[in-house]
Protein backbone atom coordinates (compact mmCIF):
# COMPACT_ATOMS: atom_id res chain seq x y z
CA UNK A 1 0.00 0.00 0.00
CA UNK A 2 1.31 3.45 -0.90
CA UNK A 3 1.45 5.90 2.02
CA UNK A 4 0.18 9.42 1.27
CA UNK A 5 2.34 12.15 2.84
CA UNK A 6 1.83 15.91 2.81
CA UNK A 7 4.52 18.42 3.76
CA UNK A 8 5.49 19.69 6.26
CA UNK A 9 5.97 16.31 7.97
CA UNK A 10 5.28 15.84 11.68
CA UNK A 11 7.52 13.84 14.02
CA UNK A 12 4.79 11.21 14.17
CA UNK A 13 4.51 10.88 10.36
CA UNK A 14 8.22 10.18 10.09
CA UNK A 15 8.22 7.81 13.06
CA UNK A 16 5.63 5.70 11.22
CA UNK A 17 7.82 5.20 8.14
CA UNK A 18 9.84 2.04 7.57
CA UNK A 19 12.44 0.99 5.03
CA UNK A 20 10.76 -0.30 1.87
CA UNK A 21 7.61 1.81 2.26
CA UNK A 22 6.52 3.41 -1.01
CA UNK A 23 5.24 6.93 -0.40
CA UNK A 24 3.47 9.64 -2.39
CA UNK A 25 4.77 13.08 -1.42
CA UNK A 26 2.62 16.18 -1.95
CA UNK A 27 3.05 19.80 -0.95
CA UNK A 28 5.99 22.19 -0.97
CA UNK A 29 9.52 20.76 -1.07
CA UNK A 30 12.96 22.35 -1.41
CA UNK A 31 15.65 21.41 -3.92
CA UNK A 32 19.41 21.65 -3.56
CA UNK A 33 22.63 19.79 -4.28
CA UNK A 34 26.41 20.14 -3.91
CA UNK A 35 26.73 23.85 -4.60
CA UNK A 36 23.88 25.25 -2.52
CA UNK A 37 23.38 22.94 0.48
CA UNK A 38 26.52 24.15 2.33
CA UNK A 39 25.22 27.71 1.86
CA UNK A 40 21.83 26.78 3.35
CA UNK A 41 23.57 25.22 6.35
CA UNK A 42 25.57 28.43 6.79
CA UNK A 43 22.34 30.48 6.71
CA UNK A 44 20.85 28.20 9.38
CA UNK A 45 23.96 28.54 11.56
CA UNK A 46 23.79 32.32 11.23
CA UNK A 47 20.05 32.27 12.01
CA UNK A 48 19.30 33.92 8.65
CA UNK A 49 16.88 31.43 7.06
CA UNK A 50 13.97 33.80 7.75
CA UNK A 51 15.64 36.46 5.57
CA UNK A 52 14.86 34.18 2.61
CA UNK A 53 11.54 32.87 3.92
CA UNK A 54 13.00 29.38 4.35
CA UNK A 55 11.33 27.12 6.91
CA UNK A 56 13.07 23.78 7.37
CA UNK A 57 10.68 22.43 10.04
CA UNK A 58 9.26 19.15 8.66
CA UNK A 59 10.80 19.91 5.26
CA UNK A 60 11.91 17.74 2.34
CA UNK A 61 15.16 18.47 0.52
CA UNK A 62 15.22 16.95 -2.98
CA UNK A 63 18.78 16.53 -4.32
CA UNK A 64 18.29 17.84 -7.82
CA UNK A 65 19.16 20.64 -10.19
CA UNK A 66 16.23 22.59 -11.61
CA UNK A 67 16.74 23.36 -15.28
CA UNK A 68 14.54 23.80 -18.36
CA UNK A 69 15.05 20.06 -18.87
CA UNK A 70 13.26 19.34 -15.58
CA UNK A 71 14.29 17.72 -12.31
CA UNK A 72 15.83 14.37 -11.42
CA UNK A 73 17.81 13.06 -8.46
CA UNK A 74 21.57 13.34 -8.35
CA UNK A 75 23.65 10.92 -6.24
CA UNK A 76 23.06 11.76 -2.58
CA UNK A 77 26.38 10.19 -1.55
CA UNK A 78 28.41 13.07 -2.99
CA UNK A 79 30.45 14.53 -0.14
CA UNK A 80 28.76 17.95 0.07
CA UNK A 81 25.30 16.40 -0.12
CA UNK A 82 25.67 13.50 2.29
CA UNK A 83 27.46 15.70 4.82
CA UNK A 84 24.40 18.00 4.81
CA UNK A 85 22.10 15.29 6.22
CA UNK A 86 23.13 15.75 9.85
CA UNK A 87 23.03 19.57 10.12
CA UNK A 88 19.92 19.95 7.99
CA UNK A 89 18.10 17.27 10.02
CA UNK A 90 19.15 19.12 13.16
CA UNK A 91 17.56 22.29 11.73
CA UNK A 92 14.29 20.47 11.05
CA UNK A 93 14.52 18.65 7.69
CA UNK A 94 12.63 15.36 7.93
CA UNK A 95 13.24 13.81 4.52
CA UNK A 96 16.31 13.82 2.27
CA UNK A 97 15.25 12.75 -1.20
CA UNK A 98 17.76 11.52 -3.78
CA UNK A 99 19.40 8.32 -4.91
CA UNK A 100 22.32 5.98 -4.16
CA UNK A 101 23.56 4.20 -1.05
CA UNK A 102 24.53 6.34 1.95
CA UNK A 103 26.98 5.39 4.70
CA UNK A 104 26.08 3.51 7.90
CA UNK A 105 27.10 6.60 9.87
CA UNK A 106 24.59 8.75 7.97
CA UNK A 107 21.86 6.14 8.47
CA UNK A 108 22.54 6.30 12.22
CA UNK A 109 22.54 10.11 12.30
CA UNK A 110 19.18 10.21 10.51
CA UNK A 111 17.69 7.84 13.09
CA UNK A 112 18.94 10.04 15.94
CA UNK A 113 17.12 13.02 14.41
CA UNK A 114 13.96 11.05 13.47
CA UNK A 115 14.60 11.84 9.79
CA UNK A 116 14.61 9.55 6.75
CA UNK A 117 16.32 9.12 3.39
CA UNK A 118 14.08 8.30 0.43
CA UNK A 119 15.03 7.28 -3.08
CA UNK A 120 13.25 8.64 -6.11
CA UNK A 121 13.92 7.16 -9.56
CA UNK A 122 15.36 9.58 -12.17
CA UNK A 123 12.02 9.86 -13.95
CA UNK A 124 12.15 13.46 -15.16
CA UNK A 125 9.12 13.39 -17.45
CA UNK A 126 6.95 11.77 -14.79
CA UNK A 127 8.14 14.22 -12.13
CA UNK A 128 7.44 17.09 -14.54
CA UNK A 129 3.85 15.93 -14.83
CA UNK A 130 3.58 15.98 -11.00
CA UNK A 131 5.21 19.40 -10.45
CA UNK A 132 2.77 22.27 -10.12
CA UNK A 133 5.02 25.24 -9.31
CA UNK A 134 8.69 26.09 -9.04
CA UNK A 135 10.21 29.19 -7.46
CA UNK A 136 13.81 30.22 -6.86
CA UNK A 137 14.16 30.93 -3.15
CA UNK A 138 17.86 31.70 -2.70
CA UNK A 139 21.20 31.96 -4.52
CA UNK A 140 19.85 32.52 -8.06
CA UNK A 141 23.42 33.14 -9.24
CA UNK A 142 23.96 29.37 -9.04
CA UNK A 143 21.64 28.91 -12.02
CA UNK A 144 20.24 25.38 -12.15
CA UNK A 145 21.89 24.69 -8.77
CA UNK A 146 20.01 27.50 -6.98
CA UNK A 147 17.83 26.74 -3.93
CA UNK A 148 14.33 26.20 -5.29
CA UNK A 149 10.94 25.42 -3.87
CA UNK A 150 8.62 23.12 -5.80
CA UNK A 151 4.95 22.39 -5.22
CA UNK A 152 4.46 18.75 -6.08
CA UNK A 153 1.62 16.27 -6.18
CA UNK A 154 2.28 12.58 -5.57
CA UNK A 155 6.02 12.36 -6.14
CA UNK A 156 6.53 8.63 -5.65
CA UNK A 157 9.56 7.50 -3.63
CA UNK A 158 10.74 4.55 -1.54
CA UNK A 159 12.05 4.86 2.02
CA UNK A 160 15.70 3.78 1.89
CA UNK A 161 16.91 4.62 5.41
CA UNK A 162 14.82 4.93 8.57
CA UNK A 163 15.19 4.01 12.25
CA UNK A 164 18.82 3.01 11.72
CA UNK A 165 18.04 0.51 8.95
CA UNK A 166 19.09 0.87 5.29
CA UNK A 167 17.50 -0.75 2.26
CA UNK A 168 21.06 -1.55 1.12
CA UNK A 169 21.84 -3.62 4.25
Amino acid at each position, binding site marked *: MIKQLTTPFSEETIANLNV*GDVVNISGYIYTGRDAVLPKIIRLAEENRLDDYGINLQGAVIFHTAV*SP*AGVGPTSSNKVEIESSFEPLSRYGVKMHLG*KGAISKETVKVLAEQNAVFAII*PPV*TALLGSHTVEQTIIAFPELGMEAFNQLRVVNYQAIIAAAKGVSIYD
Partner: protein
Amino acid sequence: MISIQDKVAACLVRAGSTFREDQKEAYRRAIADEGNEHACWVMRQVLDNALVAEERRSPLCDDTGIPHLFLEVGKNRIVTGELLEQIKEGVAMGLRQLPGRPMAIKGDDDARIDQSGGLNEDSGALAPSPILIKAVDEEVIRLTILMLGGGPAIRGITQRVFHKHSVDVVVDEIVSRAIPAVSQLGCSPCTLAVGIGRSQFEATSLMMEAMVYGDFNKQTAFEKRITEKVNESNTGPLGLGGKHSVLATFAKVGPQRASGVRIVALRPCCCFEPRRASVEL
Protein backbone atom coordinates in the same frame (compact mmCIF):
# COMPACT_ATOMS: atom_id res chain seq x y z
CA MET B 1 10.42 20.20 -48.23
CA ILE B 2 11.79 19.69 -44.71
CA SER B 3 15.25 21.20 -44.26
CA ILE B 4 18.23 19.15 -43.06
CA GLN B 5 18.31 21.28 -39.92
CA ASP B 6 14.65 20.50 -39.12
CA LYS B 7 15.17 16.77 -39.73
CA VAL B 8 18.18 16.71 -37.42
CA ALA B 9 16.39 18.74 -34.73
CA ALA B 10 13.38 16.41 -34.76
CA CYS B 11 15.72 13.40 -34.60
CA LEU B 12 17.48 14.83 -31.53
CA VAL B 13 14.19 15.48 -29.75
CA ARG B 14 13.11 11.90 -30.51
CA ALA B 15 16.44 10.55 -29.18
CA GLY B 16 16.05 12.46 -25.91
CA SER B 17 12.38 11.74 -25.31
CA THR B 18 11.42 8.37 -26.75
CA PHE B 19 11.93 4.70 -25.96
CA ARG B 20 12.08 2.44 -29.02
CA GLU B 21 9.61 -0.46 -29.12
CA ASP B 22 12.33 -3.05 -28.42
CA GLN B 23 13.32 -1.01 -25.35
CA LYS B 24 9.74 -0.91 -24.04
CA GLU B 25 9.43 -4.65 -24.65
CA ALA B 26 12.66 -5.28 -22.71
CA TYR B 27 11.19 -3.47 -19.70
CA ARG B 28 7.86 -5.30 -19.94
CA ARG B 29 9.68 -8.66 -20.08
CA ALA B 30 11.90 -7.75 -17.13
CA ILE B 31 8.94 -6.58 -15.00
CA ALA B 32 7.04 -9.79 -15.75
CA ASP B 33 10.09 -11.89 -14.88
CA GLU B 34 11.25 -10.01 -11.74
CA GLY B 35 10.40 -11.35 -8.29
CA ASN B 36 11.74 -8.44 -6.24
CA GLU B 37 8.94 -5.91 -5.63
CA HIS B 38 11.30 -2.95 -5.23
CA ALA B 39 12.92 -3.78 -8.56
CA CYS B 40 9.51 -4.04 -10.22
CA TRP B 41 8.49 -0.68 -8.77
CA VAL B 42 11.61 1.01 -10.20
CA MET B 43 11.21 -0.54 -13.65
CA ARG B 44 7.50 0.36 -13.81
CA GLN B 45 8.42 3.96 -12.94
CA VAL B 46 11.05 4.04 -15.71
CA LEU B 47 8.57 2.63 -18.25
CA ASP B 48 5.78 5.03 -17.17
CA ASN B 49 8.29 7.87 -17.45
CA ALA B 50 9.07 6.84 -21.02
CA LEU B 51 5.38 6.84 -21.96
CA VAL B 52 4.88 10.33 -20.47
CA ALA B 53 8.07 11.65 -22.12
CA GLU B 54 7.00 10.32 -25.50
CA GLU B 55 3.55 11.87 -25.21
CA ARG B 56 4.88 15.26 -24.04
CA ARG B 57 8.01 15.09 -26.23
CA SER B 58 9.96 16.08 -23.13
CA PRO B 59 13.29 14.80 -21.77
CA LEU B 60 13.45 11.27 -20.36
CA CYS B 61 16.02 12.49 -17.82
CA ASP B 62 17.11 15.93 -16.64
CA ASP B 63 20.67 15.00 -17.63
CA THR B 64 19.70 15.25 -21.28
CA GLY B 65 23.19 14.16 -22.35
CA ILE B 66 25.84 15.21 -24.85
CA PRO B 67 24.82 14.65 -28.50
CA HIS B 68 27.05 12.04 -30.16
CA LEU B 69 26.71 11.76 -33.93
CA PHE B 70 27.10 8.67 -36.14
CA LEU B 71 26.81 9.13 -39.91
CA GLU B 72 26.31 6.22 -42.31
CA VAL B 73 27.22 7.04 -45.91
CA GLY B 74 26.38 4.92 -48.98
CA LYS B 75 28.90 4.32 -51.78
CA ASN B 76 27.48 6.89 -54.19
CA ARG B 77 26.49 9.56 -51.68
CA ILE B 78 28.46 12.71 -50.99
CA VAL B 79 29.01 14.37 -47.64
CA THR B 80 29.94 18.04 -47.95
CA GLY B 81 31.21 20.56 -45.47
CA GLU B 82 27.88 22.33 -45.92
CA LEU B 83 25.98 19.20 -44.85
CA LEU B 84 28.13 18.89 -41.73
CA GLU B 85 27.38 22.53 -40.91
CA GLN B 86 23.63 21.94 -41.40
CA ILE B 87 23.81 18.95 -39.07
CA LYS B 88 25.52 21.08 -36.44
CA GLU B 89 22.81 23.76 -36.78
CA GLY B 90 20.11 21.09 -36.51
CA VAL B 91 21.67 19.77 -33.31
CA ALA B 92 21.57 23.25 -31.75
CA MET B 93 17.92 23.66 -32.80
CA GLY B 94 17.03 20.26 -31.37
CA LEU B 95 18.71 21.01 -28.06
CA ARG B 96 16.65 24.19 -27.74
CA GLN B 97 13.44 22.36 -28.63
CA LEU B 98 13.92 19.35 -26.30
CA PRO B 99 14.98 21.42 -24.21
CA GLY B 100 18.42 20.13 -23.31
CA ARG B 101 19.92 20.98 -19.94
CA PRO B 102 21.99 24.15 -20.46
CA MET B 103 25.37 22.73 -19.54
CA ALA B 104 27.89 24.15 -22.02
CA ILE B 105 30.91 25.38 -20.08
CA LYS B 106 32.20 28.84 -21.02
CA GLY B 107 35.77 30.09 -21.17
CA ASP B 108 39.30 29.11 -22.20
CA ASP B 109 40.95 25.71 -21.65
CA ASP B 110 41.58 26.25 -17.94
CA ALA B 111 38.12 27.75 -17.31
CA ARG B 112 36.47 24.84 -19.08
CA ILE B 113 38.40 22.37 -16.95
CA ASP B 114 37.72 23.95 -13.55
CA GLN B 115 34.31 25.35 -14.60
CA SER B 116 35.27 28.81 -13.37
CA GLY B 117 33.86 30.53 -16.46
CA GLY B 118 30.29 29.56 -15.66
CA LEU B 119 27.62 27.91 -17.79
CA ASN B 120 26.07 29.10 -21.01
CA GLU B 121 22.33 29.52 -20.43
CA ASP B 122 21.54 28.56 -24.04
CA SER B 123 20.72 24.83 -24.32
CA GLY B 124 21.79 25.02 -27.98
CA ALA B 125 25.33 26.12 -27.06
CA LEU B 126 26.25 22.55 -26.11
CA ALA B 127 28.67 21.34 -28.79
CA PRO B 128 28.13 17.81 -30.12
CA SER B 129 30.93 15.24 -30.17
CA PRO B 130 32.99 14.79 -33.36
CA ILE B 131 31.04 12.90 -36.05
CA LEU B 132 31.84 9.21 -36.54
CA ILE B 133 31.45 8.23 -40.22
CA LYS B 134 30.85 4.68 -41.49
CA ALA B 135 30.61 3.48 -45.09
CA VAL B 136 27.55 1.29 -45.63
CA ASP B 137 26.18 -0.88 -48.40
CA GLU B 138 22.99 1.14 -48.83
CA GLU B 139 22.23 4.23 -50.89
CA VAL B 140 21.73 6.48 -47.88
CA ILE B 141 23.11 9.22 -45.74
CA ARG B 142 21.72 8.28 -42.32
CA LEU B 143 22.41 10.20 -39.13
CA THR B 144 22.03 8.56 -35.73
CA ILE B 145 22.06 10.80 -32.67
CA LEU B 146 22.97 9.31 -29.30
CA MET B 147 22.40 11.41 -26.17
CA LEU B 148 25.05 10.24 -23.70
CA GLY B 149 24.61 11.13 -20.02
CA GLY B 150 27.26 11.91 -17.42
CA GLY B 151 26.73 9.03 -14.97
CA PRO B 152 27.66 6.29 -17.45
CA ALA B 153 30.61 8.42 -18.65
CA ILE B 154 31.95 8.50 -15.07
CA ARG B 155 31.69 4.72 -14.71
CA GLY B 156 32.76 3.73 -18.24
CA ILE B 157 36.15 2.01 -18.62
CA THR B 158 38.42 1.62 -21.67
CA GLN B 159 41.34 -0.66 -20.90
CA ARG B 160 43.32 -3.62 -22.23
CA VAL B 161 42.60 -7.27 -21.53
CA PHE B 162 45.26 -9.95 -21.91
CA HIS B 163 43.07 -12.59 -23.51
CA LYS B 164 45.28 -15.68 -22.98
CA HIS B 165 43.71 -17.06 -26.20
CA SER B 166 40.38 -17.53 -24.46
CA VAL B 167 37.02 -15.80 -24.99
CA ASP B 168 36.14 -16.82 -21.42
CA VAL B 169 39.00 -14.69 -20.08
CA VAL B 170 37.72 -11.65 -21.95
CA VAL B 171 34.11 -12.22 -20.87
CA ASP B 172 35.16 -12.68 -17.23
CA GLU B 173 37.18 -9.46 -17.30
CA ILE B 174 34.27 -7.51 -18.83
CA VAL B 175 31.95 -8.91 -16.15
CA SER B 176 34.39 -8.07 -13.33
CA ARG B 177 34.59 -4.48 -14.59
CA ALA B 178 30.84 -4.20 -15.22
CA ILE B 179 29.57 -5.34 -11.80
CA PRO B 180 31.05 -2.45 -9.75
CA ALA B 181 30.31 0.01 -12.57
CA VAL B 182 26.63 -0.97 -12.61
CA SER B 183 26.45 -0.88 -8.83
CA GLN B 184 28.03 2.58 -8.62
CA LEU B 185 25.98 4.00 -11.48
CA GLY B 186 22.75 3.83 -9.51
CA CYS B 187 20.47 4.64 -12.47
CA SER B 188 19.91 1.03 -13.42
CA PRO B 189 18.77 -1.31 -14.94
CA CYS B 190 21.68 -0.77 -17.30
CA THR B 191 22.43 -1.78 -20.83
CA LEU B 192 26.09 -2.60 -21.27
CA ALA B 193 27.76 -1.22 -24.40
CA VAL B 194 30.99 -3.00 -25.32
CA GLY B 195 33.53 -2.41 -28.10
CA ILE B 196 36.57 -4.64 -28.62
CA GLY B 197 39.31 -3.35 -30.90
CA ARG B 198 43.03 -2.73 -31.42
CA SER B 199 43.35 0.72 -29.83
CA GLN B 200 41.45 2.91 -27.39
CA PHE B 201 40.02 4.94 -30.28
CA GLU B 202 38.90 1.88 -32.22
CA ALA B 203 37.38 0.14 -29.19
CA THR B 204 35.43 3.27 -28.27
CA SER B 205 34.24 3.69 -31.88
CA LEU B 206 33.06 0.08 -31.87
CA MET B 207 31.27 0.68 -28.57
CA MET B 208 29.49 3.63 -30.19
CA GLU B 209 28.53 1.40 -33.11
CA ALA B 210 27.19 -1.21 -30.68
CA MET B 211 24.92 1.48 -29.19
CA VAL B 212 23.78 2.57 -32.66
CA TYR B 213 22.83 -0.92 -33.88
CA GLY B 214 21.96 -2.68 -30.60
CA ASP B 215 18.53 -4.32 -30.40
CA PHE B 216 17.01 -5.58 -27.13
CA ASN B 217 15.27 -8.37 -29.06
CA LYS B 218 18.45 -9.66 -30.71
CA GLN B 219 21.19 -10.85 -28.41
CA THR B 220 24.20 -12.94 -29.47
CA ALA B 221 25.46 -15.77 -27.28
CA PHE B 222 28.43 -13.55 -26.33
CA GLU B 223 26.12 -10.70 -25.27
CA LYS B 224 23.78 -13.02 -23.34
CA ARG B 225 26.69 -14.50 -21.40
CA ILE B 226 27.79 -11.07 -20.19
CA THR B 227 24.24 -10.03 -19.25
CA GLU B 228 23.54 -13.23 -17.33
CA LYS B 229 26.83 -13.13 -15.42
CA VAL B 230 26.42 -9.48 -14.39
CA ASN B 231 22.84 -10.16 -13.30
CA GLU B 232 24.11 -12.85 -10.93
CA SER B 233 25.34 -9.96 -8.77
CA ASN B 234 21.70 -9.20 -7.78
CA THR B 235 22.48 -5.47 -7.65
CA GLY B 236 19.09 -4.78 -9.19
CA PRO B 237 17.46 -1.58 -10.43
CA LEU B 238 18.69 1.48 -8.50
CA GLY B 239 20.75 -0.97 -6.43
CA LEU B 240 17.62 -2.17 -4.60
CA GLY B 241 18.19 -5.85 -5.43
CA GLY B 242 16.69 -8.17 -8.01
CA LYS B 243 17.83 -10.11 -11.02
CA HIS B 244 17.67 -7.30 -13.59
CA SER B 245 20.73 -5.13 -12.99
CA VAL B 246 21.30 -5.29 -16.75
CA LEU B 247 18.60 -5.60 -19.43
CA ALA B 248 20.94 -6.45 -22.32
CA THR B 249 24.46 -6.15 -23.66
CA PHE B 250 25.23 -4.49 -26.99
CA ALA B 251 28.68 -5.62 -28.14
CA LYS B 252 30.69 -5.05 -31.32
CA VAL B 253 33.88 -6.99 -31.96
CA GLY B 254 36.14 -5.38 -34.58
CA PRO B 255 39.31 -6.54 -36.33
CA GLN B 256 41.94 -7.65 -33.85
CA ARG B 257 45.71 -7.27 -33.47
CA ALA B 258 48.04 -10.27 -33.72
CA SER B 259 49.02 -10.06 -30.08
CA GLY B 260 48.00 -11.13 -26.60
CA VAL B 261 46.04 -7.98 -25.92
CA ARG B 262 42.52 -6.77 -26.72
CA ILE B 263 41.33 -3.24 -25.98
CA VAL B 264 37.87 -3.26 -24.41
CA ALA B 265 35.64 -0.21 -24.10
CA LEU B 266 32.75 -0.63 -21.66
CA ARG B 267 29.92 1.79 -20.89
CA PRO B 268 27.21 0.97 -18.36
CA CYS B 269 24.40 2.81 -20.16
CA CYS B 270 21.78 4.12 -17.70
CA CYS B 271 18.15 3.00 -17.51
CA PHE B 272 17.17 5.34 -20.39
CA GLU B 273 20.11 4.61 -22.68
CA PRO B 274 21.02 4.14 -25.38
CA ARG B 275 18.91 7.25 -26.03
CA ARG B 276 19.09 7.23 -29.80
CA ALA B 277 17.19 8.06 -32.97
CA SER B 278 18.07 7.98 -36.67
CA VAL B 279 17.06 10.02 -39.70
CA GLU B 280 17.87 9.80 -43.42
CA LEU B 281 19.18 13.09 -44.76
